[in-house]
């Protein structure tokens, strides 16, 4: 009964899940794996990656649109999730290759020799052949999956605790989050960071031990996994921002001092929201990078998190589906424009080359949305649905009135 009322109060959940399901099924049927081949495997991967970006966007919406914390560092958590899973993928695959090449040797290699061989394969590009300590658990899928959650979660917890405790808010907090993601990317750029410097981790699309499985099939598996994660993330966040928790979180956004005087420890709430969204961002990253195939420190550069905020703003802050739509539309348009999909416009004296001008277009759209359509793309839905989902009581009351 409780569940029904939760769904009844948040009709967008069912709509959203239905849309994701239809989308995923449709993409699957059109894929090479299904034999139709209407869309290429690389496009299936683009769609799967888009689902991951939608997931990190709804996390961003919760932290920014609902709780009012303009974090410009959430892509750092996304990247850390990617690195965590990438370490296992690289390790396990290299281990198989090394085992094959050493199998021919007459004297069986010692475990140390095997380990050294793997290390020199992975770290040869940065001039070492020793495993850094952070690779301690890289041989265990289970432990690295745990790292996908723990590393972003702990970083967010520590960073958030320090920042919120000293009551850093507003633009100062945004700058601090930018500094965090910048520091992380600068650190990762170093060759002795233990994560292969600017080479990053590569070959992540090759799943260890599944060499026989074609990428067409792998891409569908990741598409489904991403869709499932997005759906679950949507339900989780819809639950968090509904009911009393949602009320307090939006209260923190609108007037945090007042929330304090009601007896709520605002810092704990911010920390909760910051950390849970960081964890989800990490999971989204762990699903994204095996589809991208490569992760390098540029992925956690400050600009990545700014794009994330732009997607959410264009999609519409303060409603989860808005953020998801914003991420999908803008990231797909972005790859269309920057991959030469959009025809260049020849103005005679000047040729508008979209690979260069896309960013200008994006910037202008961002400003236009901020100034003229603060509700973003998601606001269009208000034209169709008059019930304000954020005011279930109002809807209920109207229904009651209508019944009387």
């Amino acid at each position, binding site marked *: 009964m*409780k569940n029904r009322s939760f769904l009844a109060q948040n009709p967008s959940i069912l709509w959203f899940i239905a849309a994701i399901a239809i989308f995923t099924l449709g993409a699957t049927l059109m894929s090479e794996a299904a034999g139709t081949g209407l869309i290429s495997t690389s496009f299936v991967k683009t769609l799967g990656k888009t689902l991951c970006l939608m997931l990190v966007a709804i996390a961003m919406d919760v932290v920014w649109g609902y709780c009012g914390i303009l974090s410009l560092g959430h892509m750092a958590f996304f990247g850390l999730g990617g690195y965590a899973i990438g370490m296992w993928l690289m390790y396990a695959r290299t281990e198989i290759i090394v085992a094959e090449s050493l199998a021919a040797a007459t004297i069986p290699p010692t475990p140390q020799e095997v380990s050294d061989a793997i290390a020199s394969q992975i770290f040869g590009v940065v001039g070492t052949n020793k495993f850094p300590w952070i690779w301690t658990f890289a041989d265990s899928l289970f432990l690295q999956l745990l790292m996908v959650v723990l590393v972003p979660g702990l970083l967010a917890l520590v960073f958030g605790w320090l920042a919120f405790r000293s009551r850093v808010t507003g633009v100062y907090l945004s700058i601090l989050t930018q500094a965090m993601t910048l520091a992380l990317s600068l650190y990762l750029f170093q060759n002795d960071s233990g994560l292969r410097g600017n080479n990053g981790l590569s070959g992540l699309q090759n799943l260890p031990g599944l060499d026989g499985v074609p990428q067409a099939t792998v891409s569908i598996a990741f598409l489904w996994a991403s869709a499932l994660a997005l759906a679950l993330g949507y339900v989780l966040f819809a639950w*968090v921002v509904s*009911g*009393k*928790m949602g*009320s*307090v979180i*939006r*209260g923190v956004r*609108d*007037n945090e*001092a*007042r*929330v*304090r*005087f*009601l*007896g*709520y*420890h*605002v810092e*704990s*709430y911010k920390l*909760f929201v910051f950390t849970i969204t960081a964890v989800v961002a990490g999971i989204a990253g762990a699903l994204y990078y095996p589809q991208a195939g490569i992760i390098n420190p540029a992925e956690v550069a400050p600009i990545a998190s700014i794009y994330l905020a732009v997607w959410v703003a264009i999609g519409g802050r303060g409603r989860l589906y808005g953020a998801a739509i914003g991420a999908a539309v803008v990231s797909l348009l972005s790859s269309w424009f920057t991959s030469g999909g959009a025809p260049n416009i020849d103005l005679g004296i000047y040729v508008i080359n979209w690979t260069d001008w896309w960013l200008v277009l994006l910037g202008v759209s961002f400003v236009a949305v901020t100034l003229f359509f603060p509700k973003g793309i998601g606001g269009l839905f208000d034209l169709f649905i008059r019930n304000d989902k954020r*005011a279930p*009581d*109002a809807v*209920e*009351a*109207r229904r009651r009135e209508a019944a009387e």
Partner: protein
Amino acid sequence: MSTLLELSGVSVSFDGFRAINNLSFQIGEPELRAIIGPNGAGKTTFMDIVTGKTRPDEGTVIWGEKSVSLLRMSESHIARAGIGRKFQKPTVFESQTVRENLAMALKNPRGPFDVLLYRKSAQGAARIEEIAAEVGLLDHLPRMAGELSHGQKQWLEIGMLLAQEPRLLLVDEPAAGMTPAEREHTTDLLKRLARKHAVVVVEHDMEFVRRLDCKVTVLHEGSVLAEGSLDHVVKNKEVIDVYLGR
């Protein structure tokens, strides 16, 4: 009647200006107390100090049977200890419904996980309706608080204060924006609350204060100028000079 809150020797300066100057103040439980005084006397600043919004430069603020110092406690901790406040300028969550505002204030565990796992209960809903009826907002529960009139926002904030069930209620200028009938209702409500709780009311309206029929503290330039019954303090020469005579 035992002492619930005691301030002694409290001073606070803003950029060299002494807004509160060696203030001492006590209130018991239950008790009703009115604070009057000219603009800028430090009435609101007094409440800021008690609720932890402003930290004094000097002095002590002692609370409750265990005589704990409020100066080391955070705003939210002070609120949980049982001090509730209605602000001079009504401060409600405008983009939330009246019901949501009251539900947020309702006395319940305040931790994030308590709140996350909180389930609406029949008692909670009944309590909200009871409070809404008390403050005349029963028909407005589903409305956005931002749509309410100034007077209704005052009522909503009073309702939120009631929902918190504090031991000490600090009520800053409740009557502003209210009709005469509403003022009367407010005085009745405050007097009724003061049978069990400690209630401090700041108000400029003398009729209102007279109807409260309680001990009055006159603040001036950050310290107590006079204290006693209204009839007693209005005869005080200094009070007439700085406040009433103007």
